């Protein structure tokens, strides 16, 4: 017997390597953050497991889920915020489909299939749905039938919600470009190229379009011709869509700061340092700003005094926008737990993880 068989040890090391590398491999189910819609007393949300839930906004009790609880598998993981038009709910999925569901029952009305995952939120304008896809295209669909009206190809994924104004649709893409399209036929009017990718959607207000990019800047461009009006540099990627309240643009950055900028000039009016990266657009209601962070803290700021009114620490990152309805703010955290908090005081009213409810 040999004193030391180096080759056997080598094989053991390789087996360890195999195990380690396998552990590093991406998990088969793509995790996602769920986004919320609260309207008419009902909270709608997608989940990591690919189920859409309708919950009673007052209690968190489940009204329905899609696919039905009796069905074992879900659709693909859901990042997108559900949107409602009349009594139809629309939501895109990682499984390449955009689902149109009956808002009362959750039953499927129609489905549109693209060639890539649909992570972007849907925009509804004048009976038309506009949605971007990982197949690099933005689609205009008839809201009632799901039939395609037109499509426009960009150079990379589209993860942000388009915005529309005056017969034009503005689409941001991770190909570093912001496109202005004719809403009726998808013809390109102009494009603006930034120094980094656009992962969040643009916001249009007045004659300006605002959009944050991975060149760490917030860009304000002329809505008519795409010329740059101003740019503001932050310390990290700007992923969140800008929020415009009267003449102030509020935008969060992954540098953990929320910036308040003059909408016309881009001059900084103030900034707030949060506990973690700000990925999603803040919510505004009744003079208060609600800012979710990747550290799991929800900061609530009084806009007039620029002081923090209260904060709430959740167990997991807050990566989607909070939603305020009546006197309640709703926040979803990674892992699909939803918290309902008193919008003025932060006192928790209820929390629920629909996917774990028995």
């Amino acid at each position: 017997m040999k004193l030391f068989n180096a080759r056997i040890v080598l094989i053991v090391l390789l087996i360890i390597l195999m195990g380690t590398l396998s552990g590093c491999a991406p998990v088969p189910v793509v995790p996602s953050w769920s986004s919320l819609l609260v309207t008419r007393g009902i909270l709608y949300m997608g989940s990591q497991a690919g189920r859409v839930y309708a919950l009673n906004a007052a209690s968190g009790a489940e009204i329905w889920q899609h696919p039905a609880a009796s069905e074992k598998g879900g659709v693909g993981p859901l990042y997108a915020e559900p949107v409602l038009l009349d009594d139809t709910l629309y939501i895109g999925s990682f499984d390449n489909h955009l689902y149109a569901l009956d808002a009362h029952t959750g039953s499927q009305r129609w489905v549109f299939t693209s060639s890539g995952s649909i992570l972007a939120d849907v925009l509804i304008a004048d009976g038309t749905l506009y949605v971007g896809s990982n197949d690099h295209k933005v689609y205009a669909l008839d809201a009632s039938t799901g039939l395609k009206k037109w499509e426009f190809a960009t150079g990379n994924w589209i993860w942000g919600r388009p915005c529309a104004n005056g017969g034009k649709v503005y689409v941001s893409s991770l190909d570093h470009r912001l496109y202005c399209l004719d809403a009726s036929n998808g013809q390109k009017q102009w494009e603006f190229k930034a120094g980094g990718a656009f992962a969040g959607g643009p916001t249009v207000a007045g004659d300006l379009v605002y959009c944050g990019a991975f060149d760490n800047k917030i860009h304000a461009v002329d809505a008519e011709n795409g010329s740059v009006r101003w740019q503001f540099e932050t310390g990290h990627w700007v992923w969140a869509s800008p929020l415009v309240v009267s003449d102030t643009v509020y935008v969060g950055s992954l540098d953990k700061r929320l910036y308040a900028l003059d909408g016309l000039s881009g001059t900084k009016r103030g900034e707030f340092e949060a506990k973690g990266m700000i990925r999603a657009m803040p919510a505004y209601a009744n003079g208060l700003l609600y800012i979710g962070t990747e550290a799991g803290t929800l900061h609530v700021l009084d806009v007039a005094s620029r002081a923090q009114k209260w904060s709430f620490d959740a167990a997991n990152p807050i990566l989607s926008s909070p939603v305020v309805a009546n006197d309640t703010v709703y926040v979803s955290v990674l892992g699909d737990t939803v918290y309902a908090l008193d919008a003025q005081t932060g006192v928790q009213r209820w929390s629920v993880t629909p996917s774990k409810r028995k």
Partner: protein
Amino acid sequence: MVEIWNTVLFEPMLNSLLFLYSLLGRSFGLSIIVFTVLVRILTLPITWQQMRSAKSSQELQPKLQDLQKKYKNDREKLAQEQMKLYKEAGVNPLGCLVPTLIQLPIWIGLYQSIINALPNNPLQLLNLARHIYQQFPILPSLVPLNAHFLWLNLGRPDPYYALPILVVATMWMQQKMMTATTTDPQQQAMNQSMELMMPMMFGIITLQLASGLGLYFVATNVVGIVQQYFLSGWGSLATLFSGQRIPLRTTRPKGKDDGRKK
């Protein structure tokens, strides 16, 4: 512990790959290849030591076998004599393991870098944001990277299985070159199983994981083949291509010297 790993190994590797990506026409495949060559150059002294150690160990095999036969009933004495032999020959029996141990974190760090540099969903991209050096403005603006190289999507396994085959072939070649010719049937059988087993294991890894890692394996094997050629020539590979067969010894010669040509 995770922070130390990220700061010392993962983040420098990830950002080096991104930096090379910006220099090499935004081809992530090319940046992996160039990065591999740079890593191999940096670890050349260790690799050289590993190769020399492996060669020396192989040269000692006949003497070790004689010792095993001589002290087959006295394990303690056998261990003493083996250590003595290693010491006299100036060979460290762990000499070929230390470099492998050093390379192991490099492989893991590189795989982590490839997977993280090529996110395919927002959560992975958010994770990447935590590790990119923001002080170099060019790096954050490169995202998302172009994952396509030749027929490969470097963030996913090769759908045509060509890369796993290349990994197996190049690793087998390297193994064959590293293995000294032997007339001992037991040693030959062991060598043959090793020459097949290692490449097959790496082939299976490549089959299942991101093809960027497979590209690294192929690149590192090719560099290894070149290095091995300059150290010991074609080794057993030359015998294979020349069609020569090594005669198997059925009985061991008696005495201290087993009669092998050195």
